[in-house]
């Protein structure tokens, strides 16, 4: 699938609108780019992207529950990025993408540029096929967790306060 530069730049501008930091890297510079985004201690869920290793960046991909709880950063794959809203599609899996993206105060999502898609319609189309293949739980996450219930808008409630996307431009 080819992704137009238009879609990627729309994604970038939507991310900035929802307060998510975007970092671009080629696969070759992945480890360094990731290290720069991580506040330790960090935990991760396996990315499943050829040639990208969490271990080389010192990320613990098999954490204990105590380590998950104490982690400052969680690194996961982002299944798709939705350009129209700057939304990250996070699929629940046995590797722990859901709790890893949810518990630590900083979430770093690793996204292949070829996985940036235009809108919610395209994302649900894709997800419909994933559902049919049995990968039938996912979250559309847009920005940091937030509440206005305490009288003003506050970021960082039950989910992360700080979301970063690491976009791998040659994947």
């Amino acid at each position, binding site marked *: 699938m080819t992704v137009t530069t238009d879609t990627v730049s729309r994604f970038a501008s939507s991310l900035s609108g929802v307060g998510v930091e975007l970092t671009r890297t080629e696969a070759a510079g992945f480890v360094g780019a990731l290290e720069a985004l991580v506040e330790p201690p960090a935990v991760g869920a396996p990315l499943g992207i050829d040639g990208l290793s969490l271990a080389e960046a010192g990320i613990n991909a098999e954490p*204990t529950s*105590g380590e998950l709880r104490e982690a400052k950063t969680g690194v996961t794959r982002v299944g798709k990025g939705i350009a129209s809203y700057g*939304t990250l599609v996070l699929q629940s899996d046995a590797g722990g993408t859901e*709790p890893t993206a*949810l518990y630590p105060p900083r979430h770093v999502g690793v996204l292949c540029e070829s996985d940036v898609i235009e809108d919610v319609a395209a994302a649900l189309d894709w997800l419909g096929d994933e559902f049919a293949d049995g990968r039938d739980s996912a979250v559309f996450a847009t920005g940091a*967790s937030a509440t206005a219930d305490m009288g003003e808008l506050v970021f960082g409630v*039950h989910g992360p306060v700080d979301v970063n996307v690491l976009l791998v431009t040659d994947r």
Partner: protein
Amino acid sequence: MSDAPSRSSAGKRRQKAERIRQVMAAEGETVHGNIAGHNQLRYDVTDEFEPFEDYRSQARAIKEDAIDRLPELIDTVTEAVEANGGSVYVADDAADANRYITDLAAQQDAGSVVKSKSMTTEEIDVNEALEAEGVEVWETDLGEFVVQVAEESPSHLVGPAMHKTKDEIKALFEAHFDPDEPLETAEDLTAFARDFLGEKIRAADIGMTGANFVLAESGTVVLVTNEGNARKSAVTPDTHVAVAGVEKLIPSIGELEPFVELIAKSAAGQPIANYVTMLSPPTDSPTLDFDEPDEPLGPGGPDHRDFHLVLIDNGRFEMREDESLRETLYCIRCGACANSCANFQHVGGHAFGGETYTGGIATGWEAGVHGQDSAAEFNDLCTGCSRCVNACPVKIDIPWINTAVRDRINRGADPGTFDFLVEGLTPDEEPGGMDLQKRLFGNFGTLARLGSATAPLSNWAAASAPGRWALERFFGVDPRRDLPTFRRETLVDWFEAREARGPGMNADRRVALYPDVYTNHVLVERGKAAVRTLEALGVHVELSPCLESGRAPLSQGMIETARSSARSVADALEPFLDAGYDVVAIEPSDLAAFRREYDRLLPAEEADRIATASFEVMEYVHGLLENGADAAALDPDGGPIAYHSHCQQRTLGLEGHTEAVLDRCGYDVVTSDVECCGMAGSFGYKSEYYELSIEVGESLAEQFESGDAAGRPIVASGTSCREQLGDLCDSAVSHPIELIAPR
């Protein structure tokens, strides 16, 4: 005579007024600040979202189909959830659901449950049921947590603690938790609640969520939140219980798109919610045991996670069979009807709500799940202004649900002592026992006819001290309101007596001008202005007979009386329509009856014919000018002007026509942006609602007394708006047509 219905009604009205006064004083300002903000954000976001209307139509069609196929979808979801390794229980009612859930908690020896926000679990009072069995329950949505700690009920479908200020929450937390560090800012309060609830979530045995939607084909629960609490409550404990009304089912992920696009925009003016979670449990996510911090995360899947989908009937299958309540089941509980409601904005859900649900749609929910008595408590707060109609993402006719339930409440009343008398005097189609106040306002057409026939005597008598006393005592007409002054010479009298100046029957356009009751008997000048304007623009004008359109009885829930009015109007208009006349109405609420409600009151073809041929007077003038009529024939002074359109006129999309005509005639127009003036026909006259009506009106008056609008002459399209503005702004208010009419 001590049990006379008039006295007990007067007492009830005083109690109701007192209750509204208390809620307004305690919560009104906070509610208004929060809700008016959400409402404006909704307009900002939806106005810029081009496919909004298309998605509304899609969402409506999907819900209609899903409710139609509900039994089949329940079978489908049951198969899907069971295939995934979970269980489905369809509970007949609250007790049945609570029994299933408390039994499950007992089987699992569960000490605590954490919950994400769910109105359906509020509806069944599951917290109380669990607590009665010794199970601790914690609400993890911060607003819901505040309400839980305060031991209050949610004041809004989406923002349960919308009635509380930061300082009130601070005082609440300090009194209840006695925290080590003082809590000063909203960040402090949020951090405190997050840490407190974080511990509860990590320790809980069961996580309970609601569901915004349930996808039948895959057995998927869709949860829409901003805080992340639903995600944590669902993924952290090994057991997940999702509680949802049966109406939450839609066929599959293929139908989800319009709802994802609509729900957050409608609820809070957010383009998309921070988290749209789609879980088909038991999920593969690893299990988390925080009591064993040195152990790796556990395996997930059906052998290690437990999932129960509890689908609730609790009256919904009966609602599905009920022509008037069925639409309620399409509701996605976004709260847009509450946010767009002027009364709700000023009083909130603790007055405008029943046992569980709040806002305009609450009448349907409460009547369906808790019964008519719960709906009767607040149903009158819907004035039928219709501002929620275009706001609802699934196009529910919320005012009609309120009207239909009001009609049932009227019919359910016990016949009282004086009914034989009232039955004889009022020409309506309503049963004995109906509230006298509603009957008075519902029969305004008859009153006005008598009023003009006997003016000025009728005006003196009504305004006299004994007259006002009787009106208040027996009919609940607030003595602080000026009464309309009936004119001896009606518009019809004037029209018949004058020498015609128009272009005659051979004119290109011929109009049957509808003299509504107010224009004919009270605001005669705007009627004359309409005749003169239309004639000056080359239109042949005749008056249709002065008949009540049905609007007045509809506003009181008197549907059969309204139907009979609509019948008379349709018969009177028929010869005009046959002869190719257009129908022009001056009062927007009557035009709205022709265009919106006649479809409910008359055979479809007849209603459609009237709706298609009817125009609001300034809309019609706009059309004439656009089609070459000569504006030079009009007589405007031009200059700065402040304009308040009418709620129902705006819902029909007709505010802009008046602005365009005034602009073209040299006026510099500033238009109000409040949802309603607060008078809303008879509402502001009723003694129990007078103070709320004034409070709502003040929001409008403030707009016209400040900034660029201050000091401008005021025009308003509706009779009620004119009276309200006249009272509050101490200024003569006229109709826009009076500004441009030749003299």
